[in-house]
């Protein structure tokens, strides 16, 4: 079978596509159209997956007629397997087993054709064409390929996120015209899609061709003007961050606040896992402690303290940090998997603790604690998502700043040393106990701050908000973003928390997509989307960073 890689990949891909179809993903995705009345997201999902898989044997064969034959044959086999599924559906009622194998699905697979054989013919044709495109893409020059992929990705994204983009554009004078041009009905208009494709392709080509030269010119600027340029960029970035909620509107601001909470949690976990290398799977515990501390101290429903947010906040952060220390202390000697399992347990214990009947008078049990007052500052109330956004933005900036300062310090270095080699770190005079406790205290403190803001944002806290999925989500955020990387956390949170919020109707498939994304990341880009430099070194054994070409010379003599 190895002589015909197209067949192998075709069979594997076919199985994937059949699974995507019968679990209902294709049909669910079909609710959104990318180009109005031409291509829907469900079809795009199938075709993109098919193109990606057909690309692999062609790339392996190194292009040429053999590569082309491999990709076309794999494309045909994949679609033939879908065609078999369609045929099977006419004989057997698949729905008895696969509840999502609905007539609608087969309608999509037949490209909405009434006649079975015309539909199957179209399906096979699409497979052949997809394979052909993928095969040709292997052979096209690097530049063209990157441009085409960038443009296609943008068109698919812009088409998919119509619900999000269109309302924003519609409100802003000149952008409204673009909006009318771009969208039509339930998706992009044909001229809109073509225009967008060309515009993005041109921009991508320009960047690839000229980007290095521009970067080089910026590098060669005198330090004063370079600093000015940096200042200008920072100011511009700051301005955009400040006006963002008003441009984006209520719903998207809400999404931004959720991303922000995850950024804070991610930065906290990043200190523990990324900097110090301790696998903590119970991170939700500190989030919960932060939330509950605020709730207990401020909620008039319980009426114990009735403090305001600013009085309670330091206590909440301190409580988080102390919990971090308490959880860390018994597991100090554990490493790797054992630590992960122990912390996983602690995360659950906190939630069960809150649920207990014994503590109900103080913690509210399953009903939670309500009526948590909004945050007030100089008479300004942080009530709506747009207002809470600023609170969260401030929190993210503060935590990001602290994490950044800590990373390049004595403390950050001791964390890195412990991560790299615990025994040697100790032999260098690093006290393992206090170093690890500090990592847990700081990481937990960050997450408690996130929890504190979460509590006032929601106005109430319930035990079920603090389940294990939060811990897993945070872990995914930092893995996808790049373990140990501060900007990586932001990118990871936007990708893994932001996108699913925008694609709510596919929420059922969220975990499936998470799993697929994680597997793909581990295979294709294990260092994450925005990698941290030492982790990159770890994963790429003998390669050198491009900036160190001169330094790389002596390394070749390595014994």
């Amino acid at each position, binding site marked *: 079978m190895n002589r015909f890689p197209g067949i192998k990949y075709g069979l594997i891909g076919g199985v994937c596509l059949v699974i995507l179809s019968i679990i209902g993903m294709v049909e669910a995705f079909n609710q959104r159209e990318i180009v109005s009345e031409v291509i829907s997201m469900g079809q795009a999902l199938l075709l993109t997956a098919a193109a990606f898989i057909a690309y692999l044997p062609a790339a392996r064969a190194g292009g040429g007629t053999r590569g082309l034959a491999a990709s076309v044959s794999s494309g045909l086999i994949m679609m033939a397997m879908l065609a078999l599924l369609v045929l099977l559906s006419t004989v057997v009622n698949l729905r008895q087993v696969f509840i999502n194998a609905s007539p609608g699905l087969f309608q999509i697979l037949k490209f909405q054709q009434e006649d079975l054989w015309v539909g199957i013919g179209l399906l096979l044709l699409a497979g052949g064409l997809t394979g052909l495109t993928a095969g040709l893409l292997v052979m096209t020059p690097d530049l063209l390929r990157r441009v085409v992929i960038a443009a296609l990705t943008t068109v698919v994204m812009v088409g998919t996120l119509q619900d999000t983009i269109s309302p924003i554009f519609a409100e802003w004078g000149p952008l409204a015209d673009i909006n009318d041009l771009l969208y039509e009905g339930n998706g992009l208009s044909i001229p809109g899609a073509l225009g967008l494709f060309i515009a993005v392709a041109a921009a991508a080509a320009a960047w690839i061709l000229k980007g290095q030269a521009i970067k080089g010119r910026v590098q060669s600027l005198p330090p004063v003007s370079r600093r000015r340029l940096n200042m200008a960029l920072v100011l511009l970035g700051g301005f955009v961050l400040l006006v963002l909620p008003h441009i984006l509107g209520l719903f998207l601001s809400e999404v931004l606040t959720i991303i922000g909470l995850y950024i804070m949690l991610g930065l906290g976990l990043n200190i523990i896992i990324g900097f110090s290398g301790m696998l903590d799977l119970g991170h939700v515990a500190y989030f919960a402690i932060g939330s509950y501390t605020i709730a207990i101290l401020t909620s008039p429903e319980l009426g114990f303290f009735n403090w305001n947010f600013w009085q309670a906040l330091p206590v909440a952060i301190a409580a988080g940090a102390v919990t971090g220390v308490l959880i860390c202390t018994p597991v100090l000697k554990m490493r790797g998997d054992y630590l992960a399992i122990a912390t996983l347990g602690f995360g659950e214990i906190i939630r069960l603790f809150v649920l207990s009947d014994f503590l109900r008078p103080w913690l509210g049990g399953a009903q939670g604690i309500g009526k948590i007052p909004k945050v007030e500052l100089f008479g300004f109330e942080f009530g709506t998502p747009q207002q809470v956004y600023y609170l969260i933005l401030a929190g993210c900036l503060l935590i990001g700043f602290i994490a950044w300062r800590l990373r390049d310090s004595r403390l950050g270095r001791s964390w890195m040393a412990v991560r790299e080699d615990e025994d040697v770190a100790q032999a260098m005079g690093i006290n393992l106990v206090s170093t690890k406790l500090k990592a847990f205290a700081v990481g937990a403190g960050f997450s408690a701050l996130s929890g504190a803001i979460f509590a006032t944002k929601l106005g109430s806290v319930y035990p079920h908000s603090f389940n294990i999925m939060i811990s897993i989500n945070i872990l995914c955020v930092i893995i996808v973003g790049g373990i140990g990387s501060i900007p990586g956390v932001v990118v990871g949170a936007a990708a893994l928390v932001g996108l699913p919020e925008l694609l709510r109707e596919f929420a059922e498939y969220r975990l499936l997509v998470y799993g697929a994304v994680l597997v793909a990341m581990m295979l294709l880009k294990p260092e994450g989307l925005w990698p941290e430099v030492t982790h990159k070194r*770890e994963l790429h054994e003998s390669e050198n960073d491009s900036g160190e070409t001169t330094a790389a010379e002596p*390394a070749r003599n*390595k014994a």
Partner: protein
Amino acid sequence: MAVITTQQLTKQFGGLVAIDKLDLDVKEQSIHSVIGPNGAGKTTVFNCITGFYRPEGGDILLDERSLVGLLPDQIVRRGIARTYQNIRLFQNLTALENILVGLHGHLKAGFFGIVLRSPATRREEKESAEEASRLLKFVNLGGKGDMIAKNLPYGDQRRLEIARALATRPKVLCLDEPAAGMNPKESQDLMDFIRHLRDALGITILLIEHQMRVVMGISEIVTVLDYGKKIAEGTPAEVQRNPQVIEAYLGRGSAAQQPHAA
């Protein structure tokens, strides 16, 4: 005067006695070697002195204060630093960062000092960066501070590991087979370097080494271990003539090392 003294030091692993009632006196500013056939307990002695193992019996004294029961990080702060038989650098950190980690025990910056970048912290960071590059220069790695440790050539890694140990400002430097894997030219350089180290910094060197050329070339005192027991001690010349030592090496068919000793 003795810097490190072990009195009746005993270490057991289950039924195996790795070190058996060892008495050792390491004189200040000397170059003192510990040799012996494989499995004689040399590295175990190091691990006891530096606190990685807790001895079952006896005592270890540094300047007449006991080290037994202290943690490795406490011992290194008392002034004993070490290198490892198989180089154990922080592979993915740069050469400079490796040394900065070694300076850790001498820095004081706390959480708030770091976050607010207080003047004291800034001064400390600047000074430690200077000291680190001084140390790099001292071990002939000047200008290689930004290289990733694992990308350095083998000999450089050995020297970087020594520089990292020196960063802890030790009184005693324990070198575990520093010449392993080196050719005659490289070991000669290393010998000169170790002597220079002792003379320039006035520290004591405790050395484990297999290459007899190195041991006999630079040691002032040699202690020979066999099965965890001290079987001989003296100047290189005395030890070489000792019949028990010759038996320990030759008797086990380790004759391959004899030509070096000659």
